């Protein structure tokens, strides 16, 4: 297996290099320096700034430097818009916060929509199934933005007024486990709600696919109960599409949280990235997207490894 992992990692090196290249060249389309310098800057000051930021060096050289930094996991570059703060510090601050938002969202989404998907598959063709599918399609057809705007208004503001005490934070974030519920639960729920439609339908389809298989009949003829069949036989068999799904949802969750973090004032990765983009903070954009990409590559790799764990037929080579 290790040989497989290493081979895959080597295979992904050009992918990673290309991503860094792509992000970098996209960022070099325009010059960020004059905007950063404020109203009174002189041309000479702009030039010296450009020199200080290393933007006047040849592109290849900049590229090599960045790749070298990424490979050595050296995040000590200074942020452009937050003097005195390195990209690494920003990462250390925002990554755990993002994870606190996205991981519970991922777990909740997967569990809930899997259960609903199974329920729907089990009652396939009956009113419950039709209702659930209909709701899922309805849910999918509303913009994410609308969920957030209304979620914040009704979920935190109106609900708080209704109960006479704040239930969910409207905006802001405070570290600490005891505060998680107050600050994170609502964004997590919104995120769950948004991705529920897609996931439910997907899991339903997966489960429906499995219900038609012969081994189900075998299991039934052995005297297995429906729940045993559902949760032991079918679930285990459906694991591959489910894992794939969850892994594919991972980066989606990161991006989904951009808007959530922005709206709810949660200083996570998405928020940091968005501010970096609007402030031309290139080091942050470059490092963050490279890290996203790296994570994605790893998650794909992990998917393959998990396949082998869950399906004895899959052999890593």
């Amino acid at each position, binding site marked *: 297996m290790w040989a497989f992992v290493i081979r895959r990692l080597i295979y992904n090196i050009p992918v990673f290099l290309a991503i860094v290249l792509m992000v970098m060249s996209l960022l070099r389309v325009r010059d960020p320096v004059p905007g950063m310098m404020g109203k009174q800057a002189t041309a000479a000051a702009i030039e010296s700034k450009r020199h200080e930021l290393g933007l006047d060096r040849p592109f290849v050289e900049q590229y090599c430097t960045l790749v070298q930094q990424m490979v050595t996991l050296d995040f000590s570059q200074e942020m452009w818009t937050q003097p005195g703060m390195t990209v690494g510090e920003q990462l250390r601050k925002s990554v755990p916060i993002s994870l606190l938002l996205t991981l519970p969202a991922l777990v909740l989404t997967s569990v809930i929509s899997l259960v609903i998907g199974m329920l729907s598959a089990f009652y396939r063709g009956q009113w419950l199934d039709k209702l659930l599918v209909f709701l899922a399609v309805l849910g999918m057809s509303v913009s994410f933005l609308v969920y957030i705007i209304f979620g914040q208004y009704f979920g935190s503001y109106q609900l708080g007024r209704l109960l006479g005490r704040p239930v969910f934070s409207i905006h802001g974030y405070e570290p600490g486990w005891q505060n998680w519920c107050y600050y994170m639960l609502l964004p997590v729920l919104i995120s769950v709600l948004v991705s529920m439609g897609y996931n439910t339908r997907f899991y339903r389809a997966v489960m429906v696919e499995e219900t038609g298989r012969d081994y189900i009949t075998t299991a039934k003829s052995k005297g297995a109960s429906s729940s045993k069949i559902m949760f032991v036989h079918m679930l285990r068999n459906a694991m591959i599409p489910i894992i794939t799904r969850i892994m594919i949802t991972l980066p989606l969750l990161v991006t989904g949280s951009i808007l959530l973090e922005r709206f709810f004032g949660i200083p996570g990765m998405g928020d940091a990235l*968005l501010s970096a983009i609007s402030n031309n903070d290139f080091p942050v954009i470059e490092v963050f997207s490279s890290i996203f990409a790296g994570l994605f590559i790893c998650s794909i790799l992990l998917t393959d490894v998990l396949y082998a764990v869950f399906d004895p037929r899959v052999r890593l080579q």
Partner: protein
Amino acid sequence: MFGRILKSREAKKLLRDKLAILAMLVIAGYLMVALALMCHALSLADCSQVVGPSNVPGLFLQEAPERRYEIARTSMLGRVRRALQRSDPAAALAEIQLGRVRVTDKSLAELQAMVASAAALQEQLQAVESLDDDPDALPLLESFERQVAALAAPLVGRDWWWQHAALLLGTDAQGRSICFRAVYSIKVAVQIGVVTALVSVLLGAVLGSMAGYFGGWIDHLVVWLVTTFSSIPNLVLLVIIAYAFTASDSDAKDTLLPVYLAFCATFWIGTCRVVRGETMKLKQLEYVQAAQTAGFGSLRILFRHVLPNTSHLMLINFSLLLIGAIKSEVILSFLGLGVKSQPSWGIMIRDAGNNGDVMTGFFWQIGTATALMFVLVLAFNILSDALQDAFDPKHL
């Protein structure tokens, strides 16, 4: 190709699904509207024209007295009054136009008198503590409204219809017609959706089928591209591309190009993957191998035999990508990177969010945009479901 599709078993299956038919009708309706808009049935100017006071509720609903006062004050009275103070009042009066409503055709002196008496009423109203809580002030308010209304020339014929259509769903904070803007957004949405979905599907299908058919280094290259592009989270890539191409000065003009670019760059991946898989399956089939042994050129086989047989996948992906494009447009526009100087649903939702419409309980703008988008996306969702069902051999 389409004729064959129509006669196929799948098409028949699809046509049996009443919901799918309904969805197709809805989509066709939207497309017709978009087409009509491209033929300038409703111009951009109509959408940016002030047709009434700001935040007027739709369906001609009556508001609370305070709001009624505000609507009456800002609609005609203020404009006429200011016009009368200008260097050339007659000319200034002639300029006033609220949608199709113009100032009534009276002499300057008469108008002055009318404004004066309305102003007197306004002063009386001004003295009332709260119009909402004071029922005695209502008659006063009503006569004020009447006087203000008298400043406008009555509408007849087409103008009447036009003005009522404009006010059907109320106005936004600038007093522009929500109805017109939302309808105009259909064009933008359809344009973005169709262009990006079409380009992405074609790009994805061509690359995918080539990769699947030829294998070898082409396959490696395409797979590598796919991995590369899918390794950056969708929205991040979207934002970076839109950002890079939006504000570079030469492209800063009003163009959807950055949006197209950003969407196409991220959307082709899914189609490519699916088509590649399907092509690899098709390649093993007898008829393709027969064509190969018959000595047909590779490209000919690819484009005549393989690609058309992935058309169902392309169709399904097309409708899925269309949904994706429409929904992503909203998010990009919200972030200020999407559509610029045209109305779009994203812009409307953004405006509603920025303007605090939601907080003040004025849901007409966000509601209209969401509803129109919802119906279109729902229709596409149902259609793509139906398509998937129809092309699923296991389905009864």
